[in-house]
């Protein structure tokens, strides 16, 4: 079987979210860069992979999957299904809950912070500090919920590692590239959870991919 192809730039935390899942699942894959400067993401070839003209997109043989969290689930289901716990009704529910929380509560407030601090300056703009401050306040409220959860359990879905934890990795790694990583300092259990994720070889590998030499 040919390796799966993950289309997109490793500067995108939606792309590296998938890379973490693919690494953790031990999937055979390669990253195929997409050039935004030439609008390659809006080319007919790429629109066939992702009709919204966005990254990432994953190709596995004849199958195209897009939307990063759907790609992550696909990799897990194919190569390491215990990351989803789908055989256990209650555990799979908690994995689903915390995957939704990642998308709808955590990364949704991190996105504007990361955009303002990392992307906007790259596009020749400046950082809107008001947007950053507002979302840091929202992030603190979210982190309070995480701290309470991680005081009771080792990982978000329970005392087992799941895709719900891993889906947080890429955006959190980007947070460390901004001046605001210290926001985590007030939440010791969140920090301990993050440290345990950072020790994983899959996370180390993707963190290296994200270094700005690419």
């Amino acid at each position, binding site marked *: 079987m040919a390796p799966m192809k993950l289309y997109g730039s490793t500067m995108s935390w939606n792309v590296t979210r998938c890379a973490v899942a693919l690494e953790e699942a031990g999937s055979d894959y390669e990253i195929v860069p997409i050039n935004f400067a030439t609008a390659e993401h809006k080319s007919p070839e790429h629109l066939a992979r992702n009709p919204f003209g966005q990254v990432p997109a994953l190709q596995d043989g004849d199958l195209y999957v897009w939307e990063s969290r759907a790609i992550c689930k696909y990799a897990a289901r194919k190569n390491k299904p215990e990351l989803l716990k789908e055989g256990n009704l209650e555990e799979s529910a908690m994995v*689903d809950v915390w995957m939704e929380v990642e998308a709808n509560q955590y990364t949704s407030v991190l996105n504007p912070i990361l955009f303002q601090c990392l992307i906007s300056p790259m596009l020749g703009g400046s950082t809107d500090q008001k947007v950053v401050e507002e979302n840091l306040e929202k992030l603190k409220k979210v982190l309070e919920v995480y701290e309470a959860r991680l005081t009771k359990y080792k990982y978000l879905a329970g005392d087992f590692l799941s895709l719900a934890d891993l889906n947080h990795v890429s955006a959190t790694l980007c947070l460390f590239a901004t001046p605001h990583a210290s926001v985590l300092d007030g939440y010791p259990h969140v920090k301990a959870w993050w440290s345990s994720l950072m020790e994983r070889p899959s996370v180390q590998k993707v963190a290296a991919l994200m270094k700005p030499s690419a």
Partner: protein
Amino acid sequence: MAMKVYGPAASTNVARVLVCLEEVGAEYEVVPVDMPSGEHKSSAHVARNPFGQVPGFQDGDLILTESRAISKYILRKGGSDLLRESNLSESAMVDVWLEVENVHFNSAMSPIIFQSFVVPSFLGGETDMKIVKENLEKLKTAREVYEARLSRFKYLAGDFVSLADISHFPAAYYLLGGPHASVLDVYPHVKAWIAEFMDRRSVKKVAELMKTPSA
């Protein structure tokens, strides 16, 4: 013991959960949460949903949040085929289109619903047409992608109905019942697809519950 759903049926996120309960024929009870008085931020509700949002959900000792996660739990428990989890490529397509529903459809519909229904009916304010127009424009890309997809397949994930389709019902209900339903007119496959899921027994039942003002 009946499962409990906390929140008003008129909330799109609550309605998503209710339609899944109806799909599997589960026994359930809707427990009202009075949002205008801030009950969703009360300590009792925050114990069920730490983000102080609706829905809250309880099945025995199990407490869940996030409507799409709750929906999957209900369907799995009820042995429904709407997730296709035993088939790798079909389940991937269900996941893709469920994400699309959240990211491209619901994210544009939520501000439209808020401005068109919640602001004038509950907050005594006026609809901000600028916000409505911006989001109708965002919705346009989604409508075009949907039309292309539904010209090739009967449903979003393929030629089988799935949670990805049904999950669109609550926002589609408001789109059809609001002043902007005509935006669908140039998308015949999207219109036919919506009409089909609106005709499901489960959807009709929940649509009735959504009309009840106090629920």
